[in-house]
């Protein structure tokens, strides 16, 4: 059993490197470890573990086109939008803030859905791009006094270039190696956030110097904040739906359905995967930038791998491969985290349990399952 011997030698090696690194080369130690993993995965992405991954595609069980826009969906959407516009006038500050956060995380979850639900690549490192967007706002504001909106634009650019760079390595693989590469590379970003304390504040975090105004409205009040988040959420939803119904989005879906056939009919599959990953990263950066403005604070926790896991849970819970589903997933997750946690200690067990049941019995997610039932009912 070669891998046992390898595990033994590898453990000792990494144990010693890590300890010495922490003692003598504080800042670079963690990088070395992640770099090892990345190099390994790059040299041998497919033959890893000597097991073929051919049938390991994520393939969420979604069958219909995204929002094939009919008049009834139009009506439903307008009604929902109207309700969301009226909602903040009926409630106080706290629910407004909570729903604003849901919008922002909804953007984040929908961006993951693009790469996971629609392109068929499960990423466990999406928080890195969220973090890049958020840190761009906070750090550029603190260091250069840059306006937060310019920070958001810079953050989207930074997240997109980060995703393109990371994606170049990741899209050479798929399935489980893809998952592990995104995990390792995002931990690299986490390490920077944690160790570059002078700039990022490490685990203590960094505050956003000044809340910007939004078309002259003061974002420290909950109502403008709510509408700012709502506008970006609706724009993202609308943009993603246009994308997914357009030729490019159809190509992404084609990659999820059958990558081999996509190559056989002439698509440069890696380039398309990279494009999807980059767009998803840019949107995650947007969500991160908005979150920095909303929250006024960002710390390295937001980039840790468990944060990537959280957004994966939101996406899956709501329904990977449905567009609005992940936003519902974000709503459920945040409601649990913020509302249930004030009544019960056990919000994590509840969300974990709900998620486990969802994976076991409703792999299409809550929205995907509900939509499946609705579509079957009239016939």
């Amino acid at each position, binding site marked *: 059993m070669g891998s046992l011997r390898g595990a033994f030698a590898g453990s000792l090696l990494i144990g010693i490197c890590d300890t010495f690194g922490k003692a003598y080369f504080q800042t670079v130690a963690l990088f070395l470890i992640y770099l090892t993993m990345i190099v390994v995965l790059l040299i041998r992405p497919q033959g890893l573990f000597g097991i073929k991954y051919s049938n390991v595609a994520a393939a969420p069980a979604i069958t219909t086109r995204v929002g094939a826009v009919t008049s009834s969906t139009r009506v439903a959407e307008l009604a929902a939008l109207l309700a969301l516009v009226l909602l903040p006038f009926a409630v106080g500050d706290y629910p407004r803030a909570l729903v604003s956060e849901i919008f922002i995380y909804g953007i984040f979850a929908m961006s993951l859905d693009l790469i996971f639900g629609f392109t068929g690549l499960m990423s466990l490192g999406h928080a890195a791009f969220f973090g890049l967007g958020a840190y761009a706002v906070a750090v550029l504001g603190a260091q250069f006094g840059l306006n937060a909106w310019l920070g958001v634009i810079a953050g989207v650019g930074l997240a997109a270039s980060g995703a393109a760079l990371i994606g170049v390595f990741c899209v050479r693989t798929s399935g489980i190696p893809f998952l592990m590469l995104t995990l390792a590379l995002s931990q690299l970003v986490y390490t920077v956030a944690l160790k570059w304390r002078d700039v990022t504040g490490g685990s203590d975090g960094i505050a956003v110097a000044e809340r910007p105004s939004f078309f002259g409205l003061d974002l420290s009040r909950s109502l403008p904040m709510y509408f700012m988040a709502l506008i970006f959420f609706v724009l993202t939803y609308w943009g993603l739906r246009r994308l997914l119904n357009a030729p490019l989005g159809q190509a992404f879906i084609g990659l999820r359905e059958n990558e081999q056939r996509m190559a056989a009919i*002439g698509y440069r599959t890696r380039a398309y995967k990279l494009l999807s990953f980059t767009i998803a990263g840019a949107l995650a950066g947007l969500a991160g930038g908005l979150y920095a403005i909303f929250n006024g604070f960002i710390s390295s926790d937001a980039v840790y791998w468990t944060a990537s896991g959280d957004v994966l849970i939101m996406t899956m819970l709501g329904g990977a491969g449905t567009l609005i589903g992940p936003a519902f997933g974000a709503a459920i997750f945040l409601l649990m985290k913020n509302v249930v946690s004030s009544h019960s200690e056990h919000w994590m067990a509840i969300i974990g349990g709900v998620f486990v049941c969802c994976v076991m019995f409703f792999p299409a997610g809550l929205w995907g399952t509900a939509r499946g039932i609705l579509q079957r009912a009239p016939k």
Partner: protein
Amino acid sequence: MNVLRVDRLCKSFGSLNVTDQVSLAIGEGERHVIIGPNGAGKTSLINQISGQIQPDSGLILLQDRDITGCSPDRISRMGVARTFQRNNLFQNLSVMDNLRLALQIRHGTPLNFFLPAAGSAALSERAASLLAKVHLPIEDTRLARQLSYGEQRQLELALALASEPALLLLDEPTSGMSPSETAQIIALISALPRALAILMIEHDMEVVFSIADRITVLYFGKVLATGTPQEIQTNDRVREVYLGLSR
């Protein structure tokens, strides 16, 4: 000028030589059928021509351009289309969406991220004419997986034709079909434009002799014989190792 020329192609997996010094040439508009017992290396040969497998040595020339070892998507864009032995469709997309994906790479704007894919009248027209060509209903809103097996084979063929190839590779287009479905798809293939060169793997001898201009017999990775149907029928070694087995 040959549409395709394969020169001394070799490929082995470990000690198994799946393709052993295979050479063949296909002229313009030629219908070339590859026959051979199971494990003769027929599909491996097609996979090397279409780029799914990298050959160890040898040359593959498409219209005198070297395509040896190119990626499948590049070879596809250079004018080679293929079908697969087992249906290989976008199962959860509609028939039209399947075709649009195949058509938009050459005739559409695959990088368009804003305008609806279904909105292009030109693509819809092309898709409709392809559907007519393979005898599928034009107003088909079903998903690919809702089609019957035979219809899926027809769609498989339509996807390959969508790129307007110079060379069409067909990997057992009649496999798993009933006799009537077989007759239908053979009629479809026979009715394809004569200018299109076709390299096809087929088991059914009647089909082979009704379609083929030339035949190549593969046996354990080697070319056993190549020639016109008459030459193959009268070739003693072929009768011995292959036709003898099936009769």
